[in-house]
Structure formats: structure tokens, C-alpha cells
């Protein structure tokens, strides 16, 4: 029939064609990277983000500065800067929030091109960029001139060994955020200590087995660590370089885990994944009465508020020791300049303007941005603390949140938070469904993080 060579060629071509067909028909490969995990460590941002400010309207004689940020409405600040600084033209693009932007940044820095000059970066992500030498030291660009204008906690977060690697912008001091009608219904007043929280939670659940005082979502690692920080149980020590301490199983951490596990066991708190909208609808409907929330949380929560508008109040965070005044922070952003930038001086000037001028803060403190400032002149101003919001009626929640900003303990983040956030989603997920206890999850997380840090070349102490 066919010659041997022709049969072999046909066979190879057939195999090649089949393998291509198989590539199309396999259940996974027909889609590009889909939406990521709930911790936000996804790569779903597109490379061609829309230009929100600057761009074509820049004059060719001005120095171009590329700026990535996801804060809604920050284009207003960019436009204002461009107007008042005609020699610089900032172009704003939104590459996606959090993990999506960090993946793009890491790839661009690794590839050697494509990174912006300035980008929004949360406090916990900055150390991983510092250790890879992706961000500029801003001290030569005058950063220290502004040091006294910022909340000390925020300034320590962006400093490492005498250098300043980003300008701090907004943050989220935490408070006890509650629906006053729901609490009044169950005859509870905002608890002043965590012991009181346990009592109130038990009492509320006894009065109504379908309601809870609080929800616990320990797979949200940022939230978990922030609350641990307030309890003196911060699980990492890191100050730059290759030494890191990881401690999820020390006495303070065990005590923290045991406290919450008791509440889970007695069903005094619910365990709904806070990555979905169910948490917010529970708050709105009174299934959950309160939340340990940050200053920026209400602006995210308000979209799901239907029946509890106007009822929300802020009270100081419960304390572990009666009479103490220890705060906590959840999230917040900084604006570093990247080493790939061709115009670091102008980029630094923009970053400094955005974070440390009244002109900028008068814009970004208003909706839709609603940023909560680390910038002390705005943070402490009467006009800011007396602001009211529709969600909280006539009360002035910023009084509580501003006061909460004063005493936040140090929170040194390890330089591998993207990995930790994803790992936590898996390791602590079992606590949500009751498959494992907090103590077990803490121990498993300790092992996972120590192994990862060692594999990455760190000297790990526990």
C-alpha cells in the first residue's frame, strides 16, 4: 500500500494534529486564567487597561509619569496634579485591584520593562517588593521632609533600615462597627473587653439561635493577623534581609486561637467566608449584629445596605485588658516609585503630592474615593472627624476611627504575603466548615510557612 516513510509521516502528522485537538478539547485549556482565589491573588487584569487620566491629553513637552491605581475616583486627584504641575503629566490606568496588579508588577519588573513609574501598593505587599529591589528609596527625593505629617505606625510600615520605600496614603484603623437597632434589640451595649464580647455573643445567640454578634472568617489572613496584632500575638518578625521569624504556635497565638475556637464551638459566632456578599447581607439583615471593621469598610459595605441604612455606629475596639487602648489596622495603601522608572524624581514628586498635601487630601477623602488618611493634618482636622455618612445617620464615626489610629502596634509584614494569603485560604478554609479547629489550622499554617520560607532561602527562626 503506502511506502513506509509515508506511513510514518502520516502517523506523525496525525499524532501532532490529535495532540492539538486534544489541547482544544481538554477541559481546562480552553480558557485563559480565570478569576482567581478569593484572596485577590489573581491574574485577571488585562494588559490594555483604560486610561483614566492624562494619556493623550498630555503635552509632549511634559515629563510622562505612568501611574497604576484602583482607588475609585482617584483620577480627580491626578487631573488636579496635572493642572497644577504642567511640566509633569501623569497617566492613570487601573490594572485591577490588589493581587491582580501585584502579579502584573512582578512580571513587568522581572521582564525588565512594562512597569509603571508609581503604583498603589498595600502595606503588606511592600516588603516583598523591597526585598527584590523593585522600589526606589525616596529619601534622596525629600521624603523625610514629610515624616512628621504622618501617623507613626504608617511611617514605620514604609521605612526599612533608614530608607523610605513608599509614601503612605490611606489606612483602616479598626473599631467595633455595629447596627445600633440590632444591638438594642438584644439588650447589648458595645463591649469594652474581649471577655465581654464572649459573654455578649453567647447571650445574643441564646436569645436568637439564628443570629450572631460577630462573624469569623479566619481565611482572610490580613484581617486575622491585624486582630492578632491587637492581642499582642503578631506572628511574624521581619526587618529586611534574609532573617525572618515565624511564630503561629507561641503562647500568645495559642491563647488567641483558643479564644475564637471557644466561640465557634459554642456557636456564638458564625463562620461565613467574608469573600462573598453573604457577609454583608447578613449584617444588613441583622443575622450578624456587628463586625470588627476598618474605617474604609463602610464604603464597601454601603452597596449591600438595604434595610439598615442610618443605623450603623462605630465604637472603640474591645480590649484584652480592661482599660487598655490598643488599636489595630486593616489594610491601607502606599505609593512607591519603581526602580524601572525613567523619571524617578518626577514620579517621587507626584507620590509626595498625592499623599502629603491638603490639595490632594481634600479630593481623595471625598466619595467615591473616601480614603481614610494617614496624613495627620487631615486625620485630626475637625472637618474630617465631624463628617457624617448616610449609612451611620447623624453619628460621626470618624471620631472613633481617628482616635483608634493613635495606638496601633507595629506590624512587620514578611516579604511573601501573596503566598501566605493563598496558603491561608486553603489552610483556614477548614475552620469555616468546622472540619478543623483554629489551633489545628494555626499549626498547619506554621508548618506551611516555615517550609516555604526555608525553600525561598530565608534563615527562619521560630
Amino acid at each position, binding site marked *: *500500500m*503506502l*511506502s513506509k516513510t*509515508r*506511513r510514518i509521516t*502520516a502517523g506523525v*502528522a*496525525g499524532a*501532532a*494534529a*490529535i*495532540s*492539538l*485537538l*486534544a489541547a482544544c*478539547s*481538554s*477541559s*481546562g*485549556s*480552553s*480558557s485563559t*486564567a*480565570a*478569576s*482567581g*482565589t*478569593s484572596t485577590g*491573588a489573581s*491574574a485577571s487584569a488585562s494588559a490594555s487597561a483604560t486610561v483614566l487620566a492624562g494619556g493623550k491629553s498630555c503635552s509632549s513637552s511634559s515629563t510622562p509619569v505612568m501611574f497604576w491605581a484602583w482607588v475609585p475616583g482617584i483620577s480627580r486627584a491626578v487631573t488636579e496634579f496635572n493642572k497644577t504641575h504642567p511640566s509633569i503629566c501623569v497617566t492613570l490606568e487601573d490594572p485591577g485591584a490588589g493581587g491582580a496588579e501585584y*502579579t502584573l508588577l*512582578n512580571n513587568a519588573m522581572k521582564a525588565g520593562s512594562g512597569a509603571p513609574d508609581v503604583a498603589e501598593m498595600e502595606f503588606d505587599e511592600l516588603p*516583598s517588593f523591597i*526585598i*527584590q529591589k523593585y522600589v526606589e528609596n525616596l529619601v534622596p527625593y525629600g521624603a523625610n521632609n514629610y515624616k512628621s505629617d504622618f501617623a507613626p505606625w504608617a511611617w514605620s510600615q514604609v521605612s526599612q533600615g533608614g530608607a523610605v520605600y513608599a509614601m503612605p496614603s490611606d489606612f483602616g484603623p479598626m473599631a467595633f462597627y455595629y447596627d445600633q437597632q440590632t444591638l438594642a434589640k438584644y439588650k447589648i451595649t458595645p463591649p469594652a473587653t474581649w471577655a465581654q464580647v464572649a459573654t455578649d455573643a453567647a447571650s445574643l445567640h441564646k436569645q436568637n439561635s439564628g443570629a450572631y454578634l460577630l462573624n469569623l472568617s479566619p*481565611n482572610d489572613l490580613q484581617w486575622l493577623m491585624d486582630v492578632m496584632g491587637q492581642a499582642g500575638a503578631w506572628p511574624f518578625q521581619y526587618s529586611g534581609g*534574609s532573617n525572618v521569624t515565624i511564630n503561629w504556635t507561641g503562647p500568645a497565638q495559642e491563647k488567641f486561637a483558643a479564644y475564637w475556637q471557644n466561640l465557634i464551638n459554642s456557636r456564638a459566632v458564625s463562620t461565613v*467566608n467574608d*469573600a*462573598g456578599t453573604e457577609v454583608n447581607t447578613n449584617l444588613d439583615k441583622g443575622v450578624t449584629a456587628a463586625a470588627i471593621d476598618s474605617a474604609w469598610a463602610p464604603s464597601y459595605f454601603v452597596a449591600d445596605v438595604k434595610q439598615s441604612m442610618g443605623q450603623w455606629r462605630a465604637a472603640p475596639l474591645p480590649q484584652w485588658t480592661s482599660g487598655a487602648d490598643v488599636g489595630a489596622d486593616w489594610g491601607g495603601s502606599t505609593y512607591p516609585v519603581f526602580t524601572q522608572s525613567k523619571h524617578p524624581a518626577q514620579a517621587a514628586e507626584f507620590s509626595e503630592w498625592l499623599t502629603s498635601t491638603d490639595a490632594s487630601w481634600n479630593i481623595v477623602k471625598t466619595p467615591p474615593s473616601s480614603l481614610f488618611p494617614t496624613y495627620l493634618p487631615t486625620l485630626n482636622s475637625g472637618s474630617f472627624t465631624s463628617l457624617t455618612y448616610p449609612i451611620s445617620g447623624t453619628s460621626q464615626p470618624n471620631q472613633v476611627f481617628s482616635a483608634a489610629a493613635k495606638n496601633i502596634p507595629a506590624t512587620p509584614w514578611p*516579604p*511573601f504575603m*501573596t*503566598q501566605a*494569603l*493563598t*496558603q491561608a*485560604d*486553603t489552610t*483556614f*478554609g477548614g*475552620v*469555616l*466548615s468546622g*472540619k478543623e479547629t483554629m489551633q489545628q489550622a494555626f499549626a498547619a499554617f506554621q508548618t506551611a510557612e516555615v517550609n*516555604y520560607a526555608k*525553600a*525561598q*532561602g*530565608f534563615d527562619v527562626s521560630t
Partner: protein
Amino acid sequence: MSGTAISAPTRPTQGESRSQPRHSAFARRRDRRGSAFVSPFLLAFLLFMIVPLGYAIYESLFTSRLIGGTVFSGFSNYSQILGSGMFWSGVIRVIIFGAIQIPVMLIIAFFFATAFDLGVARFGRFFRTIFFIPFAVPVVVSALMWGFLFEPSYGPFVHLASALGFHNTNFLSSSLMLPSIIVIAIWEWTGYNSLILYTALKSVPRDIVEAAILDDTPLWKIILKVKLPMVRPAIVMLIFLNTIGALQLFVEPLILNNYSAGVISLNWTPVLYIYNTSINDAQYNLGAAMAVVLGLVIVAISVTSLLFRRRKGEFK
């Protein structure tokens, strides 16, 4: 001839004939034109399959760390993976997934293909189109849709199960997650498979079937003993393709993870583990090595099915 995707040319070619020398001008022109037709495909194949494969193998020989940068590490990534319980537990899971999903789906697909072939279904063409539509739906959309249907608090299937007496069913719990994904995969792929089998059935020679009918063979025997063996090549090819697909399970668990926290671990399937290791842990080199190992596993398992075909005497 049979319903396979590739059929070899049957006409004797120029090179076979003894009357003309192999390297005539005419033969050379034919070969050049032949290569011109094939070269775009070969170029794409080279660029998008061979080069990335080579790059992945190259990358897998290095290790990149936050402290110390990228260094050549030989096969240390591979020895790490071979001893990694997390990787192999994912492999076992997708093998179990395939072992259940593929036979069940092929039986259902063959049933539908036979029903259409026998013409017992009214409006056959309309239904064939309807059954094929799930294949046209992007996998992400299917997973999102099924996620809503299975959703533990408000999903309609939960209410349905309740109405049937199964209260508090969580289709996305750790015990029911794999069965639920099997159901989704069967929904997605049955139409495609039944279309291929239908085409294969249609090419069964009529005279064989008519002879069986004349022999008073019952219908079920005609289907199982006459038609089924004749479409064996198509079935073996489908097993081969579906195995490759099943072992690469990725999108459904990735999406369903959002509906049910803590059930899908980051190593639930091998491709999911590769994705998390590369993107979230920024360990691209380890991910590349895992991809190579997974590729070899898939080749080993799917070629086994082809050997099965050969032993039955399909190839002369």
C-alpha cells in the same frame, strides 16, 4: 472508511510507481507544493508547542528564590516533585475523576448516538444541536452557572434535594465536590462525544446491519454486538482525548472554590497546583518542572489506551 478523525490517503503515490524515477521534476514540484501547504501548520506547531515546551524544560532546571535569585539546580525540582505528596494526591484525584467520568459519559453519549442513528427521536437534528450546545459554552461560564445551581445556601438544586427528602445537602462539600464536578463534566462533554459517535455509527456499512436484521437478531444485540464493535476506533480515540482532558481538570474547581471555601485546596488537581505554585508562590521554575512531570504522566496514561487498541489488531 471508519469514523476516525485522520484517514490516510489511499491512492498510490508517485514514489510507488516503478515506471518513473523518484526524483523527477514533477515529483519535486509536488513535494514543494505539499510542503507549502503543511508549513504554516508546522510553523505554528513549532512556535506554540515546541518552543514553549523547550522553554519550560529549560526553566525547570533552575530554582528562583527571594534570597539568592535564580540559580541552576539541575534535577532538584524534579526530585522535589517526585517526593511531593501534595502533587501526587492531586494526580490520584484526577485519575479517579477520569476513571468515573469518562465511562459514564461515553455510555450516555453512545446511548444518545444510537437513539439518533436509529431515528427513534423525533426532530433528531434539533435535539442533536441542543445536546451539542454545552460544548459551545465556555468552560468558565459552565462552572459559574453550575456553581449557582449547586450553591449551598440558595441554589435551586439544594431546594430540589430538600423537596425529595434529602435535607441540608451541600453539593459542594468536601465529600460531594468531586461527584458534582463529574456531573458538570458529563453535561459539558456528552454532546460532543455523542456527535462523534453518531458520525461513526452512520458510517457502519449498511449491508452488515441488514444481514443481522435478516438473521432475526434482536435490536439490543445488533447495537451491542454489531454496531458497537464497528465504532471501536472512534471510542478508543474518544477515550484517548477525554483522558488527556480529564487529567488537566482546572477551571471547574477554580471557579467552584468561590462558592465553597476550604474544600478546594491549592493542590486539588495537578494543574491547579501548578497554577498556584507559579502565580501565587512566584515559583515559576518549580511550576515548569511540575508541568513537565504532569505532561509525561498524561502521555503515559493516554498512550496506554492506544496500545490497547493496537493489541486488538486495529493496526496492520
